[in-house]
């Protein structure tokens, strides 16, 4: 029952709309089945499965609105939910930024639902965990990992005739492998819509290699270094920047995209000219949701950065209306267009540098310059004359993705990383400010 068909969802939405006495009404139904397995110290620690199905109805009277949520679907419960939403709306204060509902929209037919993932069961999860634990145990290494799978749907409808339905699946896997003496640590993460692409054993072998290779790390002086950021590391810094590309904050002068005199940097060249970032829900590697902005807007292909120039910011419907521009939704995943080289190729072409597997505990230091701090983790290595020479102790960095994307040396081939396509990047003058003893 957790995953309704398009017809079942439409029928319920129509029923709810018919119960409503409000000026405008919108309904959302979502359901999913989620399963997970967690392990540590080479043993499964927790495992579970949950099913969720819930309906949310929002009723509007002028600029007042109220929402109620239920997980019972008989007629009496549906009607009760509508009445409750109406009652909340009548008591609510007026929202001066309230927007009228959207009419019918054309949504993209995204391809994010795969049977291979929807079919995952407890046995699959146990085998996936075993596939990760077993090779570690055989090499006297210690694995701690987590896998979560989800299959679900979302349906939207409103009293102005809007209707949309989408199904999707996902599987996320990550593992940290440590040497038993705690002097080496490696990490790998994988995410797919299609579980048939996931092989926990092959993925874990990368983390095992990193763990073994990172033993006896040497301390280097903190300072500015040429770095090769693996896609996970690139992702975490670049996505933080993308999440700050809200137009209203920029217009209000409280964003890295604001500038002197109250103008914004839209249309300005802010990065190296090789930087191109788009989002595209139809990309087959990272199929996204057809819905954007949480308010029924269709998600579309958007160019965010082109040849280093800021091409678009994202908007709420209210702010776009006020500014008289198109209400572009914030992206789901992004596509950072890179080159063709592998990480190995990038290492080969590096005279002196640091290879960074991933970053950890990234926090904003200064929102004005998008300065972030954080640390390297689970595999940091010194490169000399095109080869990895030895593992190095972890560093703390203080760096802005804006500065980093101006110090671009080279880009590798993008790979799927946390729902985005991200290349490894070679960056000069990346700022490490102190050393950490953490392994």
């Amino acid at each position, binding site marked *: 029952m957790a995953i309704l068909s398009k017809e079942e969802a439409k029928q319920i939405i129509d029923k709810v709309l018919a119960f409503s006495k409000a000026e405008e009404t919108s309904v959302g139904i979502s359901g999913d089945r989620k399963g997970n397995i967690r392990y*540590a110290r080479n043993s499964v620690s927790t495992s579970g499965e*949950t099913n969720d199905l819930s309906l949310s109805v929002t009723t509007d009277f002028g600029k007042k609105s109220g929402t109620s949520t239920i*997980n019972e679907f008989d007629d009496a419960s549906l009607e009760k939910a509508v009445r409750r939403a109406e009652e909340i709306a009548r008591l609510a204060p007026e929202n001066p930024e309230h927007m009228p509902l959207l009419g019918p929209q054309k949504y993209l037919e995204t391809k994010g639902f795969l049977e291979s993932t929807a079919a995952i069961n407890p046995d699959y999860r146990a085998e996936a965990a075993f596939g990760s634990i077993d090779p570690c145990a055989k090499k006297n290494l210690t694995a701690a990992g987590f896998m979560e799978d989800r299959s679900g749907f979302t349906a939207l409808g409103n009293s102005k005739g809007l209707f949309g339905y989408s199904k999707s699946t996902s599987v996320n896997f990550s593992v940290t492998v440590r040497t038993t003496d705690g002097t080496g640590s490696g990490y790998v993460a994988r995410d797919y819509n299609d579980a048939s692409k996931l092989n926990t054993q092959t993925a874990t072998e990368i983390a095992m290699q990193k763990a073994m290779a990172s033993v006896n790390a040497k301390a280097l002086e903190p300072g500015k270094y040429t770095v090769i950021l693996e896609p996970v590391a690139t992702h975490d810094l670049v996505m933080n920047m993308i999440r700050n590309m809200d137009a209203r904050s920029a217009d209000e*002068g409280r964003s*890295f995209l604001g*500038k002197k005199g109250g103008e914004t940097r839209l249309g300005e060249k802010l990065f190296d000219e090789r930087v191109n970032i788009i989002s595209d829900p139809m990309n087959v590697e990272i199929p996204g949701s057809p819905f954007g902005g949480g308010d029924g807007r269709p998600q579309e292909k958007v160019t965010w950065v082109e040849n280093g120039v800021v091409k678009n910011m994202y908007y709420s419907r209210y702010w776009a209306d006020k500014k008289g521009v198109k209400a572009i939704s914030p992206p789901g995943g992004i596509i950072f267009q890179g080159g063709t080289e592998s990480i190995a190729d990038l290492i080969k072409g590096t005279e002196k540098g640091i290879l960074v597997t991933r970053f950890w505990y990234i926090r904003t230091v200064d929102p004005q310059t998008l300065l972030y701090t954080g640390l390297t983790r689970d595999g940091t290595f010194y490169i000399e004359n095109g080869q990895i020479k030895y593992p190095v102790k972890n560093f703390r960095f*203080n760096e802005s993705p804006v500065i980093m994307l101006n110090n671009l040396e080279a880009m590798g081939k993008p790979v799927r990383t946390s729902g985005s396509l991200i290349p490894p990047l070679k960056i000069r003058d990346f700022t490490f400010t102190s050393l950490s003893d953490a392994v």
Partner: protein
Amino acid sequence: MKRRDFMQMSGLGLSAIMMPSVPVIGSTVAAEHLLDPWMDATSKKKLTEIALNAARSKGATYTDVRIGRYLQQFLYTREKQVQNIVNAESYGIGIRVIANGTWGFSATSDVTPDGIAKCAATAVEIAKANSKFQKEPVELAAQKGVGEQTWKTPLKKNAFEIPVQQKIDLMLNVSGAALDNGASFVASNLFFVNEQKYFASSDGSFIDQDIHRIWPTFTVTVTDKATGKFKTRDALSSPMGMGYEYLDGIASEKIAGPNGLIGYRNSYDMVEDAVLAAKQAKEKISAKSVEPGKYDLVLDPNHLGLTIHESVGHPTELDRVLGYEANYAGTSFATLDKWQSKNFAYGSKLVNIVADKTQANTLGAVGYDDEGVPCKEWDIIKDGILVNYQATRDQVKILGEKESHGCCYADNWSSVQFQRMPNISLKAGTEKRSVLDMIKGVEKGIYIVGRGSYSIDQQRYNFQFGGQVFYEIKNGEITGMLEDVAYQSNTQEFWNSCAQLCDKDDYRTFGSFFDGKGQPSQISAVSHGCATTRFNGVNVINTGRKI
């Protein structure tokens, strides 16, 4: 199985920088519904007995049951408008068992005799299935049944009984006060939480608890068109284990600090703080950029609480030390051999850190934890030496102890309980000393107030902290405001540089309302008390950049 709704309220009210997402658990309901009484204790007891019997009949050797109703009311305003009001309710039952020496857990919102019996059977089934992978059977520290008990947060005003309009009026007054004093923008939030949970175990405990928490906060922003600069100042409130009385702003609970700063103990004046916040955010625009180097730091409790949380609270969680969090939050430098040596100098001799779940008005204060253990206080660091950890019933044997520390918590009926942080607090100094006395003794230093940017490595060695406001100290006097300040240190070096403590009159608690841990992630709330404290020769960096 029907389960909680889990919504992320992104970017509402609070700036994305301060808090990317606020977890809302449950279904949205009318505010009045939050006051409806739920099941009485007798009915709950009967339902838990069904679970206990069903689990035992399926082969469980131990069972605990939590029937929980979790209520949240979150209000969001920006400038002169209400952005959102969320009233949420979530209820159901979570059943945890030991069968074949292995844990099993299952939860359901179907709180009927049939639903509960099925849920108990599933928990036993999962335990038996997982027992195939089990290396060592679970061994629980003994806990004598406590019979029927009740515990309630000793609040004076139930926040859920205060009309929504009164709360909105307060928030709009906060906005008005900030805007009148130079703020360009102000976003305010009120968070109220009530956990009504009934715990029963096969040990013979039946515990009914009613727990309340509150967190009023805001972010004031000042923009300067001429330079394009913007600066923020967050509220200097603390989340508390209190009712709405925390917002009374009682004068006797205020501590006057230098440069007009006010320390709030168990009562907070949100409007007064908003006025100061606007003035300070404005002052920050033209404040002097810090010269990097070594400084003696004078750290206010509303700042140091977070440093305690990150550099003492998390590393002394026993599950992290053992490796159970290795793939997510990380492990810990405070390894068992350091504790066993009985001479690991975590800090200077002045450093005495206690764990507790009993201190009045704190977020950690409850009568019993989520495995029925009565709460208590114990030492973590004594005279600078690491002497203990935070542990649950299945962990204390590792420490050679026979009684659990009472550190087990689940954020919802549908989440499995695991080891979570109790209050972790630095004891105040025994010598009489005010903040001004402390500043007088500093030649080259920085006085830091408020929670800012924070980051620490996965074993809790290296950290970097910012703050809300920074004042330069020269030759015993504050000379003016500084900007672009962050300090970096190593946990052991930092705590060994602890040179001076203010006394109990300056003691206040800081809190973390949405502390995350585990996979899937769970939240918890925890307080950290301390008085203003001095740390010598800490490395300060300049975080100013140009893009």
